[in-house]
């Protein structure tokens, strides 16, 4: 090892591995060669009997009738612009929190098959998140609500329309008294206008908005600080120093995909001339920004507020006496403050939605002081519809329901029975409402509790509009007719209004017609079709507004910070997959390994290693958590990097009704009180003595000192770039393969990877990767072709985190190929390591011989076990049956399609023309794919950087997938942590 490589680190993946307990070795022994149990279960004779029987039965099973009736059904009339066999893309948008992100939905033969980000949309820029990728599965989910029901009895839409007409007459008579509408956070201009007309017709109506993961404190801080409601939009390209406080900037904040792109672009020093941003993070529970931070501190929420006061005091954004208090992290905070001050005008302080008003106020004050407002942070008029604080709104609604003031309630979207603050007891109060209507995608908790439940149309099944984080409007166009008879909120409100027009298309179009006239947008048809085609309504982004931060900040805050609290604290956080619970029925998201815990199919109470030790807890222990009188049983997961004394409870699990997510995980909402939505003291935690098996996808093997992750510092990169990665190129006895034509290759930048899992789901969607279920995950049979490994280094309580996406390496000397007895995995002339499913007999030799463990085996007919409509699979990719090995193909179907297009036009394939599914969705452009033989290609340029390395190069497999090492930019003033 070169002397310069002073940051030689030990990496670890699980706490057991770090501790090197003997039990872990036996655990690995037990888990890895999993057939040991099976071997002992049979004697030889019995084994042969069973084998013979299964062979015979296997032969019999081939004797069935031909499954395909061989029918060929042409169109009666070919729809305009449809070319069979060619993908078509239609722009639309999908909302989360009410905020839109633009998508392009690819259609094959008229069926929506795959979602991509819309490059023209400011919130997507071509990237898509995991939940956006998974939205296509929800569209097809046969467990979605399909029936109109009244008082639990099956009814018809006409029944409902009749009932609503009667109700309307009564409401008109008393001017809408008792009428309430409850929606999620709302940005849709046309729906807002429609609700306004409801308000006009029924002056007594009240409109409530509720999101369980609301951004109330952010909004409250804006009103307190700037004197009016404003939204904050960020420009990370200019941010050389970022200070995140429990920040969701690159994970879930509105606009996170666009922010993530700019964030990563500023952190590729090997490609951009040796400069990169520096990130500080203080947080209570790991966030993606914290994982990417150069310096991170885990601390309790009260400590965060105190620390931020200290920093504000140092920077002159608060009174001087704030710097007087003692802090355990004073040196760290001081160094960060000095660094921030030195980069005035190029810094950004960002606080996540879970942070209290005080923290947001402090963040604004520091940003103001450091000249961030106007450079890295701009203020715009609020994008969401006006709303009183949502917590207050839902509380008032619940109180009014209890006191009988509400007699007609429309719940259009949210699921308050499940996710409203626990002490409101929304379900009981809802029973006082004689006429309640729930429009929902699933027959969820609220739908079941309402007098009328109406199946909702998916966002891909109806017209609509929504705004992005910067105000840009997208008109949503349906991608399919409602598959399960869903209805849109427009229809229901139109009937309530007594409007003769009830179809959403006419309503949305009429709204925009009117608005286009008002805004002088010229020819309406051109405007309408143009907006639909591009997926963005031009010139709708909000302009920057000026608002001065009121200077008497200290007066608004309590004079002294809250004292250090004692005892355990429950933190309520969005789940990385299930979000607030609205994505809980999506199988892909349920089986998506969470970035930090690698957990699938369950949530768990996340506890810091030190706290777990104090409490005598270990992973998989079941504990009883009590907040006040309410108790919930939850399995423990000991999470490195979690703040001490903080128990993070991921929300969005433990549904009691709905689809696939019902009964999976525990429901943390039951503990969540209305006064403190994000953190609340725990009354007690008690060990029940039970164990609960958690299905994690990592931690069943050992690293044994291999250089899987390589890293260096910015200083090192600029001084001696060659010293960062260790390379060995062993000689081979075999002749080299020659690739005179094309040589496909991939380069993954570990510095850019933020671990968001979008690529994993994109790959799953593109390549027909099945889900396997919790039991199979426990057996290590997860099928994801692309996984994101998570590595830690440093001490267990404050580790550095690195994410590493691992697809097939497409080795030039592939170990899998030589062991296949039937040539089912072979090399092609462009260097692809092919998998020929129809040849595979399932020996699994290849998987055993693959050093990267990227091969996946269909132990059961996973693809056919789940209730998934056949028309939802990607027809360009084989659906694999039981007994077949599969793995990443570099999206060979995309290579072929482009290759055929190019050959048909008699030209070469252009660089960047083939985009793999993971590459296309990656918000940070961490993945580049291309031709290694094309000297000007982007992939060659990235591979030419001195920090490019391949995994396990001493095995001489010559992988085509290579990695750019992690480059950290530590502040020399902050002492290096001891590993």
């Amino acid at each position, binding site marked *: 090892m070169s002397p310069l490589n002073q940051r030689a680190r030990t990496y670890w993946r699980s706490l057991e591995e770090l501790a090197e307990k003997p039990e872990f070795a036996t655990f690995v022994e037990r888990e890895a060669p999993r057939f040991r149990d099976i071997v002992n279960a049979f004697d030889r004779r019995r084994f042969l009997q069973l084998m013979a029987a299964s062979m015979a039965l296997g032969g019999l099973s081939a004797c069935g009738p031909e499954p395909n009736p061989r029918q060929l059904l042409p169109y009666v009339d*070919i729809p305009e612009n449809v070319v069979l066999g060619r993908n078509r893309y239609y722009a639309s948008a999908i909302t989360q929190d009410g905020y839109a992100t633009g998508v392009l939905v690819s259609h094959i033969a008229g069926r929506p098959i795959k979602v991509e980000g819309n490059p023209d949309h400011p919130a997507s820029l071509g990237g898509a998140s995991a939940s956006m990728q998974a939205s296509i599965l929800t569209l097809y989910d046969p467990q979605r609500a399909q029936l109109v029901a009244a008082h639990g009895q099956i009814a018809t839409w006409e029944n409902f329309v009749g009932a609503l007409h009667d109700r309307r007459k009564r409401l008109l008579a008393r001017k809408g008294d008792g009428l309430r509408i409850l929606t999620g956070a709302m940005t849709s201009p046309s729906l807002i206008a429609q609700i306004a007309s409801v308000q006009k017709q029924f002056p007594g109506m009240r409109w409530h908005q509720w999101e369980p993961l609301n951004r109330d404190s952010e909004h409250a801080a804006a009103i307190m600080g700037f004197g009016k409601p404003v939204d904050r939009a960020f420009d990370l390209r200019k941010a050389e120093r970022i200070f995140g406080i429990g920040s969701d900037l690159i994970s879930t904040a509105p606009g996170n995909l666009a922010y993530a792109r700019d964030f990563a672009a500023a952190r590729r020093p090997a490609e951009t001339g040796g400069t990169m941003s520096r990130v500080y993070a203080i947080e209570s529970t790991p966030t993606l920004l914290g994982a990417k931070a150069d310096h991170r501190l885990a601390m309790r929420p009260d400590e965060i507020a105190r620390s931020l006061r200290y920093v504000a005091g140092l920077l002159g954004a608060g009174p001087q006496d704030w710097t007087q208090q003692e802090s355990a992290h004073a040196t760290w905070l001081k160094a960060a403050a000095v660094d921030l001050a030195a980069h005035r005008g190029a810094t950004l302080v960002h606080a996540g939605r879970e942070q209290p008003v005080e923290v947001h106020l402090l963040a604004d004050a520091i940003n103001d002081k450091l000249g961030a407002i106007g450079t890295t942070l701009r203020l715009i008029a609020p994008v969401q519809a006006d709303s009183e604080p949502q917590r207050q709104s839902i509380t008032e609604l619940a109180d009014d329901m209890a006191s009988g003031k509400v007699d007609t309630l429309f719940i259009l979207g949210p699921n308050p029975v499940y996710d409203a603050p626990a002490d409101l007891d929304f379900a009981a109060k809802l029973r006082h409402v004689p006429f309640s209507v729930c429009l929902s995608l699933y027959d969820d908790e609220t739908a079941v509790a309402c007098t009328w439940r109406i199946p909702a149309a998916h966002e891909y099944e109806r017209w609509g509009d929504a705004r992005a984080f910067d105000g840009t409007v997208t008109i949503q166009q349906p991608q399919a007719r409602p598959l399960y008879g869903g209805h849109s909120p427009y229809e229901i409100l139109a009937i309530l209004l007594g409007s003769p027009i009830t179809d959403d298309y006419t309503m949305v179009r009429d709204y925009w017609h009117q608005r286009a006239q008002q805004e002088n947008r010229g020819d309406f048809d051109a405007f309408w079709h143009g907006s639909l085609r591009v997926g963005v309504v031009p010139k709708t982004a909000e302009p920057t507004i000026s608002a001065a931060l009121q200077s008497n900040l200290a007066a608004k805050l309590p004079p002294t910070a809250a004292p250090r609290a004692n005892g355990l604290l429950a933190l309520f956080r969005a789940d990385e997959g299930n979000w607030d619970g609205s994505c809980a029925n999506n199988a892909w998201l349920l089986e998506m390994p969470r970035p930090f815990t690698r957990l699938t199919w369950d949530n768990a109470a996340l506890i810091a290693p030190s706290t777990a030790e104090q409490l005598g807890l270990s992973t998989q222990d079941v504990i009883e958590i009590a907040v006040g009188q309410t108790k919930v049983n939850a399995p423990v997961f000991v999470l490195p990097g979690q703040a001490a004394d903080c128990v993070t409870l991921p929300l969005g699990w433990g549904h009691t009704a709905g689809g696939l997510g019902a009964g999976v995980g525990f429901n943390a909402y039951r503990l969540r009180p209305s006064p403190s939505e994000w953190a609340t003291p725990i009354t007690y935690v008690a060990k029940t003595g039970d164990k609960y098996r958690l299905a994690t996808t990592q931690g069943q093997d050992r690293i044994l000192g291999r250089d899987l992750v390589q890293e260096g510092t910015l200083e090192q990169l600029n001084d001696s770039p060659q010293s960062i990665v260790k390379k060995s190129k062993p000689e081979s006895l075999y002749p080299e393969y020659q690739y005179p*034509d094309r040589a496909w290759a991939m380069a993954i930048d570990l510095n850019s990877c933020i671990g968001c899992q979008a690529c994993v789901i994109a790959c799953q969607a593109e390549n027909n990767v099945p889900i396997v279920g919790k039991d199979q995950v426990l057996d290590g049979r997860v099928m994801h072709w692309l996984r994101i490994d998570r590595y830690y280094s440093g001490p267990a309580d404050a580790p550095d985190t690195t994410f590493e996406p691992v697809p097939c390496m497409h080795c030039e000397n592939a170990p899998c190929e030589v062991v296949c007895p039937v040539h089912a995995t072979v090399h092609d002339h462009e260097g692809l390591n092919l998998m020929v499913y*129809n040849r595979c007999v399932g020996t699994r030799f290849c998987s055993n011989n693959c050093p990267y463990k990227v091969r996946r085996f269909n132990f059961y007919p996973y693809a056919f076990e789940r209730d998934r409509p056949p028309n939802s699979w990607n027809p360009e990719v084989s659906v694999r049956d039981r007994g077949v090995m599969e793995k990443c193909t570099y999206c060979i179907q995309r290579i072929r399609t482009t290759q*055929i297009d190019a050959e048909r036009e008699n030209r070469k394939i252009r660089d960047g023309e083939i985009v793999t599914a993971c590459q296309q969705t990656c918000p940070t452009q961490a993945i580049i794919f291309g031709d290694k033989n094309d000297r000007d290609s982007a992939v060659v340029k990235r591979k030419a950087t001195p920090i490019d390395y391949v995994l396990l190069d001493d095995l001489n497999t010559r992988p085509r997938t290579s990695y750019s090492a992690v480059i950290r930019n530590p502040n020399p003033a902050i002492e290096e942590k001891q590993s």
Partner: protein
Amino acid sequence: MAIFRPSANLFVSTALIGTVILGAFLLLAIWVVPVVGYNTEERYAPEQPIPFSHKHHVSGLGLDCRYCHTTVEETSTAGMPSTKICMTCHSQIWTNAAMLKSDRQSLAQDVPIRWTRVYTLPDYVFFDHSIHIAKGVGCTECHGPIGDMPLTWKAHTLYMSWCLSCHRDPAPHLRPKDQVFNPHWNRTPSTPSGKTLMTAYHINTKILSDCGICHR
């Protein structure tokens, strides 16, 4: 006392002959059955809702293939004609022919005509018409004398060995681009040689027999 009674001889010889016959049957099953016409469906014309004659439409009336198979130059699938395409002519001529009942029914009821596939490929094979057309492979190379078929029958086995015979050596199967859709084309002395065409079309045989060309 002898160990074997005389009947044992009979038993042994029957068993020996039986083994040979069984072996012959097995060989027959393995080598012959898969290639007999009954199994490969070569020269087999399945029953169709409309007894469509390519001979009449193509050789008789001179319709171009692309009139009905509209996407053959653009995408993987050649495209089956929609009912409306049939009706461009048949709304004017043979409007009451009994043969075209299904066609009229399809239009009136807006339900597709249910043809039976003549050429079926397994799901793990991804064949693309457009690239074959672009590289000068004529329709009749795979579809046989399609222009002379009164009823459409399957001209080739579509076995992988048959596909590969051309993918390994495409030269004899290539023709000038303007002759691709000609069902009666024959190589003449003035036709450019297969080799010349290979160069002109930039056909790289090396990658053509890679598994990933058809299987994905």
